[in-house]
């Protein structure tokens, strides 16, 4: 019990500035999710019917990929704390690979949607589905750009067991991208 309270007193990992950004991002996604719920409340039938057309297997695979990439980022942080910048670099490269796989899978899904003639104008559900997933897609791209910079620095030996704030900063943002997807998957693909 004492340990728990000691843990909770630890400072936030990474640079404090990234937490301001994460908070602002969560506000943005929070507003989007609230708008989704608000729109759904008056179009329940349309939302339920259209939701069933989504490919949940893809959505579930996307979720597994992102959660695994987050695990990879967590291992990268542990590695650098243990003083191994090469292992840190490898784990980050793994996370980047998984991020890339997510983008490929999501692109395939978008392609199939478009092939079926689904657009923003099809109905209110698809408008939200496309807008939310594409907006999140762009966040994955941004998260990967951040991780790529961190990875480059890790391989260049700029981090160490004493100096690893950059790895935690990039990792915190990536976890946020992952967290948002988990909520998005549950909200848009599953719950009805």
């Amino acid at each position, binding site marked *: 019990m004492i340990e728990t309270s000691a843990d909770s007193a630890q400072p936030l990992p990474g*640079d404090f*500035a990234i937490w*301001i*950004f994460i908070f*602002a*991002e969560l*506000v*943005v996604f929070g*507003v*989007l999710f609230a*708008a989704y719920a608000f*729109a759904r409340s008056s179009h329940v039938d349309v939302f339920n019917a259209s939701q069933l057309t989504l490919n949940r297997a893809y959505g579930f695979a996307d979720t597994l990929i992102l959660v695994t990439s987050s695990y990879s980022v967590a291992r990268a942080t542990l590695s650098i704390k243990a003083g191994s910048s090469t292992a840190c670099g490898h784990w980050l490269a793994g996370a980047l690979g998984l991020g890339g796989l997510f983008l490929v899978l999501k692109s395939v899904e978008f392609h199939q949607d478009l092939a079926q003639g689904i657009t*923003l*104008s099809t109905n*209110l559900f698809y*408008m*939200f589905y496309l*807008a939310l997933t594409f907006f999140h897609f762009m966040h994955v791209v941004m998260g990967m750009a951040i991780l790529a910079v961190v990875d480059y620095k890790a391989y260049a030996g700029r981090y160490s067991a004493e100096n690893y704030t950059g790895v935690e900063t990039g990792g915190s943002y990536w976890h946020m991208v992952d967290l948002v997807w988990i909520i998005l998957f549950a909200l848009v693909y599953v719950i009805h």
Partner: protein
Amino acid sequence: MKYPSQQVAKPYFIAALALFVGQIVFGLIAGLQYLHGTFLFPELPFDVAHMSHTNLLIVWLLMAFMGAAYFIVPEEAQTELYSPRLALVTFWVFLIAAALTIVAYLFVPYAQLAAITGNAALPTMGRGYLEQPLPTKIGIVLVALSLLFNVTMTLIKGRKTSINLILVGSLWGLALLFLPAFYFPHDTVKASFGWWWIVHGWVEGDWELILGALLGFILIKMTGVDREIVEKWLYIIVAMTLISGIIGIGHHYYYTGAPSYWIWLGSIFSALEPIPFILLIVFSFKMLMQRRREHPNKAAMLWALGTPVMAFLGAGLWGFMITLAPAQYYIHGTNFTAAHGHLAFFGAYAMVSLAIISYAMPLLRGRTANSAAAQRWEMAGFWIMVFSMIGITLALTGAGIVTVFLQRAADDPMGFMQAQDKARVFFWVREFAGVAFFIGLLVYLRSFFIAGEYEYADEMKQALAA
């Protein structure tokens, strides 16, 4: 001031202030024409006064931004400006072109101006803010190219700070976003799309980045806070501006013939647009609290802190009040929009321009800060202008509400002119507040004519005696 070539900023700042005076004069005339429709008719009809008011606004802000770029980029890059001569030539070209355009507005009927200047060959004239004849528009592009060439070459040969990268990058954005001015199709929906890329792209996107860079520069200089901290804040503000602002353009697409999903996307994303302004306020006041020095230029600090607050009120709060589609359905095109426009343009862009002028002009005149007496005049000008602008905003909001309830949301709606008549009292309040604003501007300008610089010894003596 560290590099002699920064001096080229001076004529830009002086011209900006002169054009600002012109803008207010035309504003007062147009405001009076709301009350007496035939005032100065037919010599100066309302549309010409209105057009001169808005066009002068854009020109003086561009002048101030360009002056700011010529001042900041060399200092940040730690090198002389690539070509001070080109900057001066560009200044005269821009000033003469702007003056000729306004003179043409005043003395040549608009349709005739369009015919003389080749509008038939490439139609660009007529849309709000973009009324300029074709030669002026081409001139704007050439002036922008000259500025971009000059500051980019300076950046390439010097130190690359985040402030410089954001400033020069957003100046490129400013120029590129002006290009849709040359796209004016017959299809009004498409024409509207292109028009908003410029107007929204500038004021709710790109210019916010310029604002952030200018404010960041002033705060680094005045508070002595670590550059690294300021840069982190700026990156977050830039990111939130783009995340909310790009899709936020959809709030201009409601009920215009654009697809209906814009009603949702525009409402949601534009409702998020106040976030960067809130971050700007937190950033500025945090920097103030963490300051490591007391800069003698108190007036510049007042402008720098006033900017995010007023920008939040004008762009953030007043913008939010009219941005959601169900509200916009009734409010569209009423004076509520004009209220938002006035407070947002003044609070964000006029004030940040005055902030950089306030910081830079004393340095350009060879002193760290103006004398205490001059600063008192300047700060008096600040408060009079700020409160007068709030007065104008509240009056226009009142007029807008009258229109909404009598003409838009009423069971038995009144005609347009009848509703306007009912709002007369608000137009009077607006005109008086406008006169007060003009007085504030004169008080502010008076500060430039008080000689002498800030005397540390005198101020210290007075402080100790008190």
